[in-house]
């Protein structure tokens, strides 16, 4: 009786104390990401255009640009983005473009920028004036004719992809800068990926430093391309690899429907033949 009460009391005390185990003292929280060699800037830098638009959007809670808690991207927790301008191959664009002569013809580019494949928007986009500003080639342009710096190009993408931009601002899309920070050109070999780009230590707490849209998506052909996968797990010793799966038995919604105006076709029972090799229940 007394020992039982003692056990309950001590167990309760242990639980109340946080259930800590003996060991080192508390590790202090990381205050901020380690200083990165990739320049970053705080975001969102809000100019008067941004403030004017936020005021205009403030009353409209019904649309999908707001979170469940009613926050817009202007009310998101602060974060930082890596800069983009310093990584661009041809910046400043005025090295070639003089901001006076603008060739707006839709044509195949033969002199410069030949390597670009234009797949954005199903190929229906053209440079001027959807994203690029013929009169100010060092900056992008919005549909409202507001200049957008290359370091804030997410604002341009967010004009159409505002749901994805909301996800990105709040952390549900994209990646933080980290030891395996993945730029657009992802190496095929895992060994190269491991040592590449150890600029910032990726953290889940402290300052949030994220990749921009254009870090992973090529703005001219933004869809992520297929990868070569890493090798599959090894089959357990002594077991045969599972037989190659043919097309699985069709599900009810994949079968041709009943003929109209007649009795519905009888539902045939779907029986899955077990794989010739290891049974499906075999797992690691």
């Amino acid at each position: 009786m007394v020992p039982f009460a003692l056990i309950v009391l001590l167990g309760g005390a242990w639980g109340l104390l946080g259930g800590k185990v003996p060991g080192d003292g508390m590790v202090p929280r990381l205050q901020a990401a380690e200083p990165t060699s990739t320049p970053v800037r705080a975001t969102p830098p809000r100019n008067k255009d941004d403030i004017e638009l936020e005021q205009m959007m403030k009353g409209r809670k019904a649309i999908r640009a707001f979170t469940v808690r009613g926050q817009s991207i202007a009310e998101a927790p602060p974060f930082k983005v890596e800069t983009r301008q310093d990584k661009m191959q041809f910046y400043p664009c005025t090295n070639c473009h003089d901001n006076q002569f603008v060739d707006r013809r839709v044509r195949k580019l033969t002199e410069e920028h030949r390597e670009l494949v234009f797949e954005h928007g199903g190929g229906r986009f053209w440079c001027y004036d959807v994203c690029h500003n013929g009169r100010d080639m060092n900056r992008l342009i919005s549909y409202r004719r507001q200049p957008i710096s290359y370091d804030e190009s997410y604002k341009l993408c967010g004009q159409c992809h505002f749901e994805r931009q909301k996800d990105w601002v709040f952390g549900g899309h994209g990646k933080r800068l980290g030891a395996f920070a993945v730029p657009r050109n992802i190496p095929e070999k895992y060994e190269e990926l491991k040592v590449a780009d150890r600029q910032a230590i990726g953290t889940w707490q402290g300052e949030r430093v994220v990749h921009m849209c254009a870090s992973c998506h090529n703005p001219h052909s933004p869809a992520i391309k297929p990868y070569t996968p890493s090798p599959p797990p090894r089959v357990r010793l002594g077991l045969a690899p599972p037989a190659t799966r043919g097309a699985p038995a069709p599900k009810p919604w994949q079968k041709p429907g009943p003929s109209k105006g007649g009795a519905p076709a009888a539902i045939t029972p779907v029986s899955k033949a077990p794989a010739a090799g290891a049974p499906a229940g075999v797992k690691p």
Partner: protein
Amino acid sequence: MLTFLAGLFGAVPAVAQKVAEADDHALSDAVGALFQKHYQKMTPEEVQEAIARITRTAKREQGVDITVATDPPLQGVIFGYALNISKCKGVRRCVEACVAENNQGRESQIQYIRVLELEKGDMNLNDADHYFAPELVPQPGKFYMPIQCLQCDNPPCVIACPVQATWKEPDGIVVVDYNWCIGCRYCMAACPYWARRFNFSQPKIPKEQVNTDTHYLGNRPRPRGVVEKCHFCIQRTRKGRLPACLEACPTGARVFGNILDPNSDIRYVLENKTVFRLKEELGTEPKFWYYTD
């Protein structure tokens, strides 16, 4: 007579020390590891002795200098993980990164993460293909779902363990004391998600691939005959870093953070995205969610 006996007994520790040092503590380390107490019952000094044994053993047997941390759980933190199955393309870089980070046996090919390939529209995990190896992923008509230990809040493995070698830490991670595990594998039978792996052989890792930043409850060198599993990279996450699988994912499908922090990425995903968990009907309350865009 008494002084003789006192002298004899007094000399025993010194003799034991000399014997232990003769073979670089191999026997005393083995005996000490066998008879050490459960991690939760050890005093700080005993924990340090256990760590000294581990580092000496690693140096002696593999020739690497490792550090073994014992970072306690952070206050006000419960870890959560979310994975976007719209973005996962089955690339399996997460699997490779996990193996590189967590010192799993290379010959035994232990991998904590298992990526499943399923037909779109099919949520029956028994239909999944574990051994897919096409030229390019994603294959048309398929979607991909990696499974690792889902760090349940009501873990059946913890209930099943007959010696309480596995338990749930206050920050939500289900950990294993590898020196206390007896290798009965009841936990492997209990886990509904096939998350646990058993060391049938001594894990062997090439010397240059050993990760020397380890945690006692995480990726420190494990002996043969114990069960291991994903521990949310406890050696990284308790220091504020991201797990290796998240950092390696080329599509950014993984989201990790503190679910008690209302401003964290994981909280945004749980509140605003369409999330589900595997085998909800079992009541295991996993802390690993899947979501779609």
